[in-house]
């Protein structure tokens, strides 16, 4: 038994020093590698589902299904008024490709950080962080919905589809990022 434990420790020590582990799992990909992977998966997504990749729109549907779960109805909401939105809602949570993509993002992110042994519960340093996170999240979520897309659906997929709207989004997002950085330095420095 004791011998077994020792072997195990040695195994993980060996993995830690393994060159391929360090290269592929432990250290982050370069921006270039990540960009190429994103492009490949965007093409696969478009080919497999018929729609370009989107992230934040899915969360609006998750919210709607949550409302329905508690007996509410979003039939009269302008946002969900279109035929397409209604049929997506009728098909249900599990039938939406975006549901699985987003679950994949969440658990994929968890898996990567666990594999790199970089998982950590971070402490909240101040109440300011909570306020900023909540306000920032609401502003981003609301903004993404009135812009009909986030940095993935509207920017990445928009530009990849040769749509002008993607570039308009890029300009607005850049301006927003400048304002956001100023606020961040003002309140968190």
């Amino acid at each position, binding site marked *: 038994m004791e011998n077994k434990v020792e072997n195990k420790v040695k195994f993980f020590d060996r993995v830690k020093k393994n060159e391929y582990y360090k290269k592929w799992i432990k250290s982050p990909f370069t921006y270039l590698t990540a960009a190429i992977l994103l492009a490949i998966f965007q093409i696969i997504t478009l080919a497999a589902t018929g729609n370009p990749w989107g992230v934040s729109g899915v969360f609006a549907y998750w919210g709607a299904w949550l409302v329905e779960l508690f007996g509410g109805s979003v039939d009269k909401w302008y946002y969900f008024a279109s035929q397409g939105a209604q049929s997506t809602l009728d098909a249900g949570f599990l039938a939406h490709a975006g549901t699985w993509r987003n679950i994949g993002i969440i658990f994929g992110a968890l898996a990567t950080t666990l594999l790199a*042994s970089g998982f950590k519960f*971070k402490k909240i340093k101040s109440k300011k962080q909570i306020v900023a996170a909540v306000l920032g999240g609401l502003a981003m979520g609301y903004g993404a919905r009135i812009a009909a897309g986030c940095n993935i659906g509207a920017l990445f997929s928009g530009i990849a589809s040769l749509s002008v709207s993607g570039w308009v989004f890029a300009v607005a997002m850049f301006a927003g990022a400048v304002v956001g950085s100023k606020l961040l330095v003002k309140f*968190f420095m």
Partner: protein
Amino acid sequence: MNEVVIDCLGEACPVPLVKAQNKLNEMSVGDILIVQIDHSCAMKNVPEWARNDGHNVEVEEVDDGEWEVIIEKSK
């Protein structure tokens, strides 16, 4: 020679980077700045900036998801 530790645990990008830049400006050549971080993107951008600026940099993984970026001010 001075050694200064700044605690950036629980702070997201770009706060650790800006804090490190401001602190290093106040220090003199030969001093050591230790930046404690637990945000993986700071592990990339803090060393990158310091190296580009010509300082000696070392990154140490002190715990799961926790690093210390050790910067020796070289100019």
